[in-house]
């Protein structure tokens, strides 16, 4: 599958290859000065001579990177000094060429589809493709770079913090920019560009360095991440359309984080997790001031949240106590059955087949907006001259909820309980033999996860305005699980990324809505087959999935010692 070019060839042709690569990249850069499309309706109007559109400019960044990566080493090892060795020049140039070809191909495909045929692709578009093909053909003839060792470089604290801040700022503007795309093609092209830049930086070694910087400045990282997330509504200029999506992403992410404790930390497969979210939502709806609610008692929201969480965790205990004693495989199916029981029961508690609690399939509509300490979530507030609408209010509230969940999650992960959970996940029998009270710990995880879902559900009820049983079906549980699996079981960052991808992509790429579930099923199978640890792997977890890989084992071991020793010497001692 992978063409291997013999080393002699690489050494013999390294200079022509470099020259040809640069030529291809230059061709691509030049191409943006020419029109790519025949008509302005495709992408963001690429019909001008000498006046590139924003997307064309973004595209050009990739070939410029190719040129830089190929040209800088020409000044010679001596002048580059340390920089010659600690980063991967050639490998990242190769990746940059491939990614620029892909972005150009996306653009050309989009133009052809939008305007009806390849005839509408103008000279610039073809030139970009040609340049891409040349660069992609030439760069494999460069000798492979050694693994980048940038992360080993000792850098001053201010530089690390600066790196994190720049990363966060890029994240914020990237998110705001990417959400602004109305058109699926624009979105796809930009997304391909972002993926390209990320992959190039990763190859180059920047991410390794950032990882170390982040680990060393954990507080700064978390804090700046929250500042960025908090600032996001201000980039929207009062528009609700994206805030609505963003707040849904957060609700989804909060629920997925709860599921992550159960699946990622303890290794219990819960296929009915959405039922706990639903239980929280129904509890909050019934206790709300909605005219349709069946219990005419509406405590303050703080109380409702606690009741909702408690109801969910009680259900968790009810379902967990019998099943957690037997094999874990049963749990998957029993939770699935429980999800069905929940949905059917909510449908049946309609005064017809049971007491009227939920109005059956009509659900409870008309749930009023939250009002906490005089802050009305339903109204727009003007802050710093920018309208902060209803969705932004809920967005901030969910941010707070997520912050709480992350605090709980990380503290548990590094506590006695968390270590017990991981021990159960890795080998339950061994854990039990070592004196871990497996049943109680599993039950605690199960009920705790349910509590968090209940809390998220209580906010969701007010956010959604209406709560109906058909919002809480098995497919939603499967989606939550997919977010956890895709992002990386057992990690906070991974789950946040997974949740964002799973909620955002269908929203932006509506034309493939019909294929959404098909791709999602395929994704789960492919992920389990090729990268079971997810996009952002948990280090310990990665080992479990690749236990035959000695090299990785050593790498992770090394990482864990340095990393954990730095954070918490006690933990490092435990792992090894």
């Amino acid at each position, binding site marked *: 599958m992978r063409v291997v070019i013999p080393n002699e060839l690489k050494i013999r042709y390294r200079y022509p290859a470099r020259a040809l690569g640069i030529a291809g990249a230059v061709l691509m850069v030049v191409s943006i000065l020419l029109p790519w499309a025949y008509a302005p309706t495709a992408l963001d109007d690429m019909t001008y001579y000498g006046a590139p559109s924003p997307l064309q400019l973004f595209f050009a960044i990739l070939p410029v990177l190719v040129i830089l990566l190929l040209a800088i080493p020409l000044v010679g090892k001596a002048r580059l000094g340390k920089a010659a060795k600690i980063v991967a020049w050639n490998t990242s140039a190769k990746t940059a060429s491939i990614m620029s070809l892909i972005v150009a191909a996306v653009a050309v495909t989009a133009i052809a589809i939008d305007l009806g045929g390849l005839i509408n692709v103008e000279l610039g578009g073809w030139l970009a493709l040609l340049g891409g093909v040349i660069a992609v053909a030439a760069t494999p003839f460069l000798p492979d770079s050694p693994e980048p060792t940038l992360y080993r470089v000792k850098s001053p604290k201010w530089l690390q913090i600066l790196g994190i801040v720049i990363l966060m700022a890029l994240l914020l503007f990237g998110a705001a920019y990417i959400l602004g795309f109305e058109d699926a093609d624009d979105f796809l092209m930009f997304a391909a560009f972002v993926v390209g830049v990320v992959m190039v930086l990763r190859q180059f070694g920047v991410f390794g360095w950032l990882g170390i910087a982040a680990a060393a400045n954990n507080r700064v990282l978390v804090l700046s991440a929250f500042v960025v997330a908090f600032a996001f509504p201000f980039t929207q200029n009062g528009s609700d359309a994206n805030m609505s999506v963003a707040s849904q992403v957060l609700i989804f992410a909060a629920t997925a984080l709860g599921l992550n404790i159960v699946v990622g930390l303890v290794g219990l497969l819960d296929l009915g997790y959405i039922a706990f979210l639903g239980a929280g939502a129904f509890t909050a709806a019934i206790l709300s001031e909605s005219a349709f609610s069946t219990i005419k008692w509406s405590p303050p929201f703080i109380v409702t949240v606690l009741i909702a969480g408690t109801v969910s965790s009680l259900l968790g205990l009810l379902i967990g106590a019998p099943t957690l004693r037997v094999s874990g495989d049963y749990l998957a199916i029993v939770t699935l059955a429980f999800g069905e029981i929940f949905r059917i029961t909510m449908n049946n508690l309609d005064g017809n087949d049971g007491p009227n609690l939920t109005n059956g399939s009509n659900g409870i509509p008309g749930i009023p907006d939250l009002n906490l300490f005089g802050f009305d979530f339903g109204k727009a507030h003007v802050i710093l001259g920018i309208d902060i609408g209803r969705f932004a209010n809920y967005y901030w509230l969910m941010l707070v909820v997520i912050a709480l969940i992350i605090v709980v999650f990380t503290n548990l992960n590094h506590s006695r309980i968390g270590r017990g959970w991981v021990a159960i996940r890795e080998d339950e029998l061994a854990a039990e033999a070592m004196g871990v009270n497996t049943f109680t710990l599993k039950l605690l995880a199960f009920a705790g996860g349910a509590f968090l879902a209940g809390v998220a559900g209580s906010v969701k009820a007010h956010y959604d305005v209406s709560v109906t049983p058909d919002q809480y079906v098995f497919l939603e549980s499967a989606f939550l699980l997919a977010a956890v699996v895709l992002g990386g079981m057992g990690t906070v960052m991974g789950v946040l990324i997974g949740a964002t991808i799973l909620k955002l992509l269908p*929203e932006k790429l509506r*034309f493939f809505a019909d294929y959404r579930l098909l791709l999602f099923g395929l994704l789960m199978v492919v*992920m389990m087959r090729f990268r079971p640890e997810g996009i952002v792997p948990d280090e310990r977890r990665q080992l479990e999935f690749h236990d035959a890989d000695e090299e990785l084992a050593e790498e992770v071991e090394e990482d864990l010692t340095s990393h954990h020793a730095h954070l918490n010497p006690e933990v490092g001692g435990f792992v090894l």
Partner: protein
Amino acid sequence: MNKHSFKLVGVALVAASLAFAGCGSRADTGSSSGGTTGKVATIGVISPLSGDLSALGLGIRNSVDLAIRQANESNAIPGWTLKLSAQDDQATPDVGKNAATKLSSDDTVVGVVGTLNSSVAQTVIPVLASATIVQVSPANTNPTLTQGEDLANPKRPYANYFRTCTTDSVQGPFAAQYLLESGIKNVATIHDKKAYGQGLVEAFTTAFKAGGGTITDAETINPEDKDFSAVVSKVKTTSPEAVYYGGEYPQAGPLSKQMKGAGLNVPLMGGDGIYDPNFIKLGGTDGDLATSVGAPVDSLDSAKAFVSAYSAAGFSEPYAAYGAYAYDAANAIINALKVSLKDATDAKSARQATIDAMASVSFDGATGKVAFDEFGDSTSRVLTVYKVTGGEWKPEKTGELK
């Protein structure tokens, strides 16, 4: 090894995204021909354009598209061009709300046709109401949407919400009236516990009892059920002369088949949810009955005009069960816009005036006379009973609910 597989996944993802771009047929760009001069006002559609119910949703979108094209061709609103913006709600409240938010932040949107599902309407209406955008549903039958939670003391919750379909409270009694007139006094009821079915059966039961009939048995099923043998056996012990079913054809067809299979040879009657050729394909048999709003299509000139215009427009999907209602809904909005846009400078400022103008809208639409009462419900009370005869739905009796 690990790096390699990451690259593989990355390449696969990008390749997949290329493939998506390759198969994109973009549903959002509703085309509307006609003059491009003048100001633009947009009519939105929120319906399921993908998923299980997409056949119904696409029929709604196309019918609205048709109404808009006709209005632009005839220059119905001088100085203005109408545009269509169709949003997919995937029949889920969450997605529907995003669609509504998107439409309400578009300043040219003056009206929305949708939704298909009452549950989606519950999250869509508040969003559109806060932006004072008129919404006309072709298919929501839940009475609480217009009359509030307490049906005994109706109170309109949202002034911007109207519908062209009739609610359950009209169809149920009409069916009761028909059965009583045919001399059937003992009927068992079954419903699928969904808003539509339950409402239908409740309205039917009240009217049937008031007319002197007896409900021999009242049963429910789950909307996803396939096996109705237990329910049928129970119903059979009460020997009814007919079974009134509240629900939709995917269950009603098999239910009718299983009834006859179990030896319960009485007609099954339902509302417009079973008035569909698929009901017969899935097991509906001769003698089964359904009510539907309006007079039969071939007895009404306006309806015939709609059907022929729809087939002439060359849509790739049929107009389906709610196409005619959606067409009427769009025309109701267009009629209101004729008043509200006349002196308006921009679309956004005409939103409130459009809602106000809806009250006086009155015209002959594809489903009969279109006008709204003080709650925003359709005033149309003309219904038709259809009967399965020779494997086809045939109109049995058209009348007005007394």
